[in-house]
């Protein structure tokens, strides 16, 4: 078993009715855990793009990719763990303030280059964009003041455009890349300890 971690997948799909249901139903039925999901349109009319964060070991993610590839609505899947990518998430955070804390809260937000999108008497709402680390750090900094509400969009990702970084398989249309032969033939990892002769 390889380690369980988060995998970022971009899924390009035909923009047709039920496509979201098809994809989420597949994850649900096969027991893959979606940590976040965001969907939007792309530069091509009729094509939507989803970023899904799945957690699991390598085997689970490969299986999820292959099952997704079978769906008629799925045009292409990019597994960002195989290449360099940029990812972002947008979060709205409503933080409780008092006359005493107000300045300090604003200062922290400034340090994070966060914008204030709403000002209330007892709360400030911030918009933060960034990768996961930055957002987690922001929330942790604000937690002591009292977080009233948060809403996250889920992560979105794109392959880095500095072309030299893009491995051929990322835009390769052919066979799934999840099918590399195992190079060494070892005994099966869960070799049965003994074979009692019941025959």
């Amino acid at each position, binding site marked *: 078993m390889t380690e369980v971690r988060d995998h970022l997948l971009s899924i390009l799909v035909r923009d047709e009715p039920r496509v979201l249901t*098809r994809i989420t139903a597949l994850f649900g039925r096969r027991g893959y855990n979606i940590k976040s999901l965001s969907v939007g349109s792309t530069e091509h009319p009729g094509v939507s793009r989803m970023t899904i964060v799945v957690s699991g070991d390598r085997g689970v993610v490969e*299986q999820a990719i292959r099952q997704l590839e079978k769906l008629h609505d799925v045009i292409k899947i990019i597994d960002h763990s195989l290449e360099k990518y940029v990812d972002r998430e947008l979060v709205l955070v409503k933080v409780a303030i008092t006359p005493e804390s107000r300045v300090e809260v604003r200062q922290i937000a400034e340090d994070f280059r966060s914008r204030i999108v709403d000002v209330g008497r007892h709360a400030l709402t911030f918009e933060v964009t960034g990768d996961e680390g930055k957002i987690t750090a922001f929330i942790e900094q604000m937690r002591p003041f009292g977080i009233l509400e948060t809403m996250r969009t889920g992560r979105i990702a794109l392959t880095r455009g500095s072309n030299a970084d893009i491995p051929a398989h990322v835009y390769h249309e052919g066979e799934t890349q999840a*099918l590399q*032969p195992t190079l060494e*033939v070892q005994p099966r990892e869960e070799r049965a300890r003994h*074979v009692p002769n*019941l*025959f």
Partner: protein
Amino acid sequence: MADNGKQHAPHRGDMTGAKALWATLANHGISTVFGYPGGAIMPVYDALTFYPEVRHVLTRHEQGAAHAAEGWAKATGEIGVCMATSGPGATNLVTGLADAMLDSVPLLAITGNVASHLMGTDAFQEADITGITLPITKHNYVVRDVEELPRIVAEAIRIARSGRPGPVLVDIPKDIQLAAFHSEIPAPHARPEAPAPSPESIERALELLRGARKPVIMAGGGSLDASAEITALARAWDIPVITTLMGLGAFPSSDPLWLGMPGMHGSVAANRAISEADVLLGIGLRFDDRVTGRVNGFAPNAAIIHVELDAAEIGKIIRTHVPVRGDAKQAALLLTQGAEPTARPEWQAQIEEWKGRTVTPETYGAGYAVKAVVDRLRPDDILSSDVGQHQMLAAQLARFEKPRRWINSGGLGTMGFGLPAAIGAGMAEPGVRSVVIAGDGGFQMTAQELATLKMYDVRNVKICIINNSFLGMVRQWQELFHEKRYSEVWLGDSNPDFIKLADAYDVPGYRATTAEELPAAIDAWLSDPKSALLEVVVPHEHGVFPMVPAGAALFEMIETEPAKSPDLSAQMQDAAEEASEA
């Protein structure tokens, strides 16, 4: 107007969506549709009268229509088509679609639906059939624009047949069926070529096979159309072949290399060979849990080569050392070209010894009766089965020389499958005997399809009911794992007189109740010029063995029906518990 049913080129304005549907089906060479009408599909049935070259077979239940279409598809390898109205008609198709999904059967289901403006309002007989069938179809559609209808149907047929086949549903609202259609009927899609396996994967597979001392080939339902190539491959390398429940017929049973079926009710030779093999070459299969038994005890010493069209099946259950993604035919051909026959006298001797341990039912019972029937089959005969003990017995005892002569519900295990599937297969191949073996339980789930036999005067369907007065397979598990508490499995008191039931539909009936009566009854039944029914009344408590208890490994198989004693259930329970702990 030139629309006399012969002419399918559309004329602007004189065609409806319903006619466009039939024209598209006819263009695709669809000759038979199994279905049942209703309010939301009436325009389609009305338009049918203009297309006499497409035969519609009225079954007595939509489930029967779906299974008949499956039987058609399984026997011919061509797409089967079924049709139903909205709501209850459509939901009655669901079991058949799930069955086709798990057994990779190319199926096109057409459903009517309420008018577009009523969809989503809980209108009369409205069901969200595309939502319901989402997980049990390869793909499904709602037609929202009449001009799109033929294109969608053509695409549905292509999806159902291409790659790993499966069911596709097209839902057509009533207003779309009635709407005027102005576009062209598209020509059928060319059947896409199956992808060729990569040379590297073949090279790696050959390397493993060359070094193998105890190799075995396992062929599944995905290998049926590569039967000749797989036979050549096995003979060229001199490697024994196991055929799964779905793969029976992919390799001739008469060949000395054939080891039988693997898995829960597999043969001693097959299960033992898997347990000892050092290289296992799987072709067109998906390592179902009824085949593998406990996964970490499956082929524990083997390097696995898996030839499979559907990439998602590779490595899904069993870790694969050499994935060969692509067409079974081409892969088998390439692997044959690289053959280096090696003498493996020890492996051969070992296999011969295991093969000697085949169980033949000696005393009168379900197994004895099934054997008597299947021994009388000719190589061309199609044998279907329902689900239960009789199914496993037929799979163990029947011998198949060719593919597509064995039709059963493997993945879903659908009771009620047998009779309608045999009717579908019989109608696809009217010159061939279509024999079905059913249990007294499962037969009653779709017994009304006897009417279909009568209505269409089908003459080649031979029904055999093995009547043990029990839901036999469930009873067997209760006997072994629930200390013989026979909860809700006794049918005996309430079973109909099957001969009278058949008679009610003008189907001749025959009965045997002893070993002595059996041969003459079989003769009379098979030689009857009409479709006929044979009821074989057998003793109540007979089990199917060999058996691998659920959760046990293949090498923990119990070979023969043990003397009935409480010890056995204890022993099997121990094996199962040990397995689930491991």
